[in-house]
């Protein structure tokens, strides 16, 4: 899907939905509920198919575009469980992901001036005012490892929250411990991921173009990403929206860490025994299919015992962070609570994730004394090496 795609372009895809709610749960025989909206409010409406029906209904003039549709469109958590489990939509031309159709619906809402109140509105106001949603990262490589000639480039993502800053700082310390030369790609603007997800497509192309202009000079190097949202967007969406894009070698930092442990460049400290459970972030897992590397990293740490939550890997349950609409009240918080309940059932001491949004959302619903139970993989590895 590109940025000029219209609702009419996805009409055939939307009409293929057979209304079975297959998009809401994982594979047989476990059949785990995976769609947070459907889990929260079991109804055809609150499934991937519900969105497809709304698109069809808009095109068939059975409903007018309004604020409710906007709130509805922004309420999806964007976990991609629908796209992973529907065995109809993704196998038939034209190939359009259900989540992309939801993003398109958001984009249409934004075009019409409908923006949900709250985070989305603030985001939109900033984008409208500055043409960007970027914020400088605190990532600064130590001279010892910094080299413009290095084959590896670390992609410095925007840093909107304290969590993201902390994760970036821990990443720098880890890169220093590994000691291999590395260069840094630091562009102050948003790569476009957030704008794409939330339908602010009008401002997206110039940002993506600016990024790519700088990135393409480095395209023979391997890009290492800390935030899976940026990585997923660049490797999957730049090809669709930038005509001159050519593929880049890319890695998530968990893959770099796993490799560093294997090569003996990173060594675990001797620490007390700790039991951890790993939460697969949606964009790293279902988005990029990176499931093993974070687990390999955890397995490389002395004293760390890994226990899986019932829903894991491609059948992971979302943290709920990216639900910005309020059509389903408390969806974001309740989703996080549901996942924490699942974590608690494992008996693990720590909940490890690999995405700042997940960490923030889990911590937001936890009582103060428990917040320290949630850690990002990078911070956790930094503490244990």
């Amino acid at each position: 899907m590109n940025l000029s795609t219209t609702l009419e372009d996805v009409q055939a895809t939307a009409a293929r939905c057979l209304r079975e709610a297959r998009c809401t749960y994982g594979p047989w025989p476990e059949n785990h509920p995976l769609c947070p909206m459907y889990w929260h409010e079991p109804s055809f409406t609150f499934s991937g198919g519900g969105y497809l029906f709304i698109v069809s209904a808009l095109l068939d003039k059975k409903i007018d575009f309004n604020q409710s549709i906007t709130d509805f469109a922004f309420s999806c958590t964007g976990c991609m469980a629908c796209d992973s489990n529907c065995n109809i939509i993704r196998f038939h031309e034209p190939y359009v992901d259900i989540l992309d159709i939801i993003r398109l619906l958001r984009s249409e809402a934004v075009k019409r001036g409908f923006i949900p109140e709250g985070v989305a509105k603030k985001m939109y106001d900033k984008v409208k005012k500055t043409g960007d949603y970027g914020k400088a990262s605190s990532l600064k490589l130590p001279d010892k490892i910094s080299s413009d000639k290095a084959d590896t480039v670390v992609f410095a993502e925007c840093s909107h929250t304290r969590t993201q800053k902390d994760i970036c700082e821990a990443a720098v310390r880890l890169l220093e411990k590994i000691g291999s030369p590395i260069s840094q790609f630091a562009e102050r603007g948003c790569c476009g991921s957030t704008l794409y997800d939330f339908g602010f497509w009008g401002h997206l192309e110039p940002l993506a173009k600016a990024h790519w202009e700088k990135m393409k000079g480095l395209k023979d190097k391997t890009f290492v990403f800390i935030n899976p949202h940026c990585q997923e967007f660049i490797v999957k969406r730049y090809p669709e929206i930038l005509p001159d894009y050519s593929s880049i070698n890319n890695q998530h930092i968990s893959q770099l860490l796993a490799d560093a442990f294997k090569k003996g460049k990173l060594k675990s400290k001797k620490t007390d025994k700790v039991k951890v459970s790993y939460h697969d972030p949606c964009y790293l897992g279902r988005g990029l299919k990176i499931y093993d590397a974070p687990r390999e990293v955890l397995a490389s740490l002395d004293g760390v015992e890994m226990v899986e939550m019932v829903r894991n890997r491609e059948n992971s349950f979302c943290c709920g962070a990216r639900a910005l609409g309020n059509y389903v009240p408390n969806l974001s918080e309740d989703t996080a609570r549901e996942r924490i309940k699942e974590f608690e059932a494992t008996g693990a001491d720590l909940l490890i994730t690999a995405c700042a949004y997940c960490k923030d959302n889990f911590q937001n619903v936890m009582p103060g004394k428990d917040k320290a139970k949630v850690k990002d993989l990078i911070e956790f590895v930094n503490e244990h090496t």
Partner: protein
Amino acid sequence: MATKTMRIEREIVSSERETIFQELRKAIGAEKVRDDEITLVTYGRVRHGFDIMWPFRKPSFVVFPETREDVVETLKIANRHKFPVTSVGTAPIMLGTTEGGIILDQRRRDRILEINTDSGYAVIEPGVSFDKLTSALRGTGFKCSVGTMPGPGTVLGQALSRGSQSFSTRYLSLVLDLEVVLPDGTVFSTGSSHFDGVGSHLRYGPYPDLAGLYTCAYGAMGVITKAAIRIHPVNEAYRIHFAGFDNYSDAVDYVKDLINNNIPEHTFIWNWHMYLTWPLSPSDMEAVMPQILESDFRKPPEGTPYNLVSSFLSGYKELVDAYEKVCAKVAKKCHGRVLSDEEVEKRFPATLAGFRQQYGDYSYRESVHWSKGRFAGWYVFAEPKDMKEIEKFAVNEFSKFGKAINPVNYYSHPFDFGRSILLRIGGFPNPDDIELRKRISKKFDEMYEMALKRYRAVPIRPIGSDRAGTYMKVLRSIKKALDPNNILNRDSGLFEEGEL
């Protein structure tokens, strides 16, 4: 007259809408009653797909009962206000809904209440899907009957709409016992559990078989809130046997012979378009579909049997070994040939994988091809010798549409030990080609007429009450007694005219 009556009723509906809404919320809880525009619109077409061929009927409310009492209260309120109610399951249903009415979506009632492995039945709520039940049955030594429904489909929806699963070789109807709620709030069971403390092991008691009244009634006679359905023991050994035939007549003779000798637990006749495309994975689809889409379904390529018969053989290992030999003997007698596992694996790997899924773990996951177009199917029952003629007739009629509806998939299987044979033949027209789809619908109506007159073929779904004579008259009398205000599935299904 009918139109006038309906219009008056709808005006009443409109004026009482708010009152009913408040009563429903008070009775069963606000969170179970939705009237927001987005919910109503997404329930405006409940047949599968947002298909502009089908009427768009926006309900006034969608109710999500969580208990039987929620259903009882909803029906009592609706009945008091003479307000239409349509009960639906999770997956596609065969009917439309009533404009401005209540849709009762029982998907939240999805508990498996009992798996009785002594008698062989499972008691389930209406929202239980095949995926859920087949999963729960694993390790119990029991299975569902071989499915033809997608995993997310509700077991009860399949059982009550009498999908072809219910017509399989030995299994007969899925339904043993139903718990029914009538519009006035009366609750009763149709099978043995109507006696206090008795389980659901027996469909037929000392009284008339009321479960039959609720099968293919499409919710018009009452709302089902619980069901006991038949489950079957998993035998010591099983094998899937394949035999190929150059014509349908020989394939029918073969399956009749096998059934009359108590050989297969389950058997299907497939045409070559279907057995090559039915459960295809996307990559297989890309490899196979282009050729299928361009082919004439009447003329398979050299070496590809026109029909494949799959037979599920099960029992003690010694018996299965013997059954296999019998199948080979009978195939030869009927001018067919046995296809070895190796040959099937080599030539139709996806087909074999699909069979293994169905027979091996007794589950059925939706195959991807259903969305190639909007499936248009024609289904009839007939006696074996008549069905041989009907197959030729149907194939000839379908061929008139040319490649536009490829793949043309049909399957056929004996029901009730071969007393009757089902043929389901369908194509996949482009969903956007409304003109073609209208032509197909019209053609199907003509074909049903002709098949009934010429070949004594009974349609699987109602084709107009005028053809059913006094049968419909009696049904209307029963409907009036059970649902005097005609609130249940008023505009669709059994009594399509909208009034009794």
